[in-house]
């Protein structure tokens, strides 16, 4: 554990930009923060609990050209060779690690891999849980350094720097860091305890797989979906929602694009025969909750929810993922 006397997050951005990195960092826009590609550390603002949108677009852009074509393939898009994200919260780091399992396991997705293998991750520990946060319920510590190259913690106005990976070590060598004192270490422990106590939401994941299994045909899902308008805001903001569409833009000359899609849209699964495996909105809503809390658990052995609470915060009809999962009936008729 090290201490930096200045603003490490901002200074690291300046350094990375000098080294030619494409840097994603939080920028304040209106009342909220989002990750943007920044040209200067001055654009950034680190006074936030979390960003409105997840940073999944860093490795999985919302719209991404796969192929430029004319009569045949003309060109493949170049991939950035130095990417960094600065200020990412531990839940979103876990989100990237879950995305890795989708895009890199089994058949490798070369477009994702090209960005991921060159990505430097500078994490930022949480000092307080947000209104909708429940990462601690899904096995994530809001001060975790898992998966980052460097983790920064704001400790009473000073920045604590934990260097985690070799790439992080290389970068940190450019900064004057002093060893943390025993007092600092103690204070950080206190802070971690305080953060854990700041969660107002908890989700009961005890025996969840079995509960989900039993509740599949329950009317509960119709009830939860009553007010749902299938807008897809939840999947759009979610750090682990990975579904995408592929389409061609341009008849004689154009680009084959992949773009985020949503299982909440009827068109996502509509077949040309007019058959739709999930024609009802409650089936689509159920699909999202089952994918996160059952299907991916079966497939990958992990929950595909990181407890960031973005979907609950932004849902226009107030569907709250923590509440929905907590209330999954354990006894089904």
């Amino acid at each position, binding site marked *: 554990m090290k201490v930096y006397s200045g603003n490490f997050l901002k200074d690291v951005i300046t350094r990375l930009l000098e080294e030619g990195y494409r840097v994603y960092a939080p920028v304040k826009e209106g009342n909220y923060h989002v990750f943007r590609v920044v040209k200067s550390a001055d654009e950034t603002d680190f006074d936030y609990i979390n960003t409105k949108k997840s940073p999944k677009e860093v490795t999985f852009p919302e719209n991404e050209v*796969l*192929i430029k*074509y*004319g*009569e*045949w*393939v003309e060109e*493949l*898009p*170049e*991939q*950035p*060779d130095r990417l960094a994200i600065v200020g990412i919260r531990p839940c979103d780091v876990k989100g990237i690690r879950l995305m890795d399992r*989708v*895009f890199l396991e*089994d*058949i490798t*997705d*070369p*477009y994702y891999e*090209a960005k991921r293998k*060159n990505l430097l991750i500078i994490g930022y520990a949480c000092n307080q849980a947000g209104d909708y946060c429940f990462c601690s319920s899904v096995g994530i510590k809001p001060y975790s350094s898992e998966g980052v190259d460097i983790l920064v913690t704001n400790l009473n106005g000073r920045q604590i720097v934990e260097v985690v990976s070799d790439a992080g070590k290389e970068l940190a060598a450019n900064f004057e860091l002093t060893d943390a004192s025993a007092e600092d270490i103690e204070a950080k422990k206190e802070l971690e305890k305080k953060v854990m106590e700041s969660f107002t939401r908890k989700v009961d994941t005890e025996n969840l797989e079995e509960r989900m*299994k039993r509740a*599949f045909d329950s009317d509960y899902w119709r009830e939860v979906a009553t007010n749902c308008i299938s807008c897809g805001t939840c999947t759009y903001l979610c750090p682990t929602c*990975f*579904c*995408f*569409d*592929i*389409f*061609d833009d*341009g*008849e*004689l000359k*154009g680009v*084959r694009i*992949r773009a985020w*899609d949503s*299982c909440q849209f009827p068109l*996502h*699964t*509509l*077949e*040309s*025969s007019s*058959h739709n*495996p999930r024609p009802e909105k409650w089936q689509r809503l159920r*699909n999202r909750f*089952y*994918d996160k809390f*059952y*299907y*991916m658990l*079966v*497939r990958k052995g992990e929950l595909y929810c990181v407890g960031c609470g973005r979907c609950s915060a932004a849902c226009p009809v107030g569907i709250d993922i923590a509440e929905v999962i907590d209330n999954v009936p354990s006894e089904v008729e």
Partner: protein
Amino acid sequence: MSEVINEPMKNPYLPYKAEIVEIRDEVKGIRPIKTFKIKLIGRERFDYQSGQGCLISVFGRGESWFTIANSPTRPDLEFSILKTGKVTTKLHEMEVGDVVGIRGPLGRGFPLDEWKGMNIVTIGGGIGQTPLRSIYQYVIDNEKDYGDLTIIYGARTSRDLCYKDELMELIEQGYNVELSIDNPEPDWPYFVGFVPDNLKRIKPDPKDTIAITCGPPIMIKITLGVLKDLGFKEDQIYTTLERRMKCGIGKCGKCKLESVYVCRDGPVFRYDELSALLEKA
């Protein structure tokens, strides 16, 4: 700046360049079906299993999934394509010599090796005959490895039957081909009624037999019931599923059925695999 690998073998989104070498009309009218014979340009045909699919690509229109319609024991690749959307409409306008893209082979095919020594019954409806054709061609080409072959196939009308010439030839050669149409037509010498009813009439013996069914969802559902009534166990019954597909490599999530990707884990499934899922196919 590094570039994404410029080779279809390494970049699974990049199609092989291929040429249409033959087009046959299977069904005419408002829902036409054509069979396209396709040759890869500049490389040998890839190896594949019956039941596997490919994404056929027409730049400017997009890509669609089709099951390979002929057996890997035959040369070239054949696809029988119903004109129904953007890509298929364009394909139906194409001519011999036109270029398309091919990504494949994709997914899991039929375990034809496991079925050696067994009797094979295929039960198809309409365009669903496509993967079954690949099976019966394979079984015919490896006749000594398999028991009896029964081909049960039906369509709405006699004009909607695919591979008519081929099936007539098989009947002439003495193969057991059981055809049906939904409603009576003059001079129709075969069964009149739905495919599951024809199956009920034929009553294949479940002993040492594998049944494979493909067709419209409702036909598959009723066929499954009939097979069970005849004594078939779920692990003797196979089907291939259709879903909307985009990536074809188990990423994009469109074809996801519960925890399985139809494009990657399927499209071929044994029935007990499907009945174990919460979400029904």
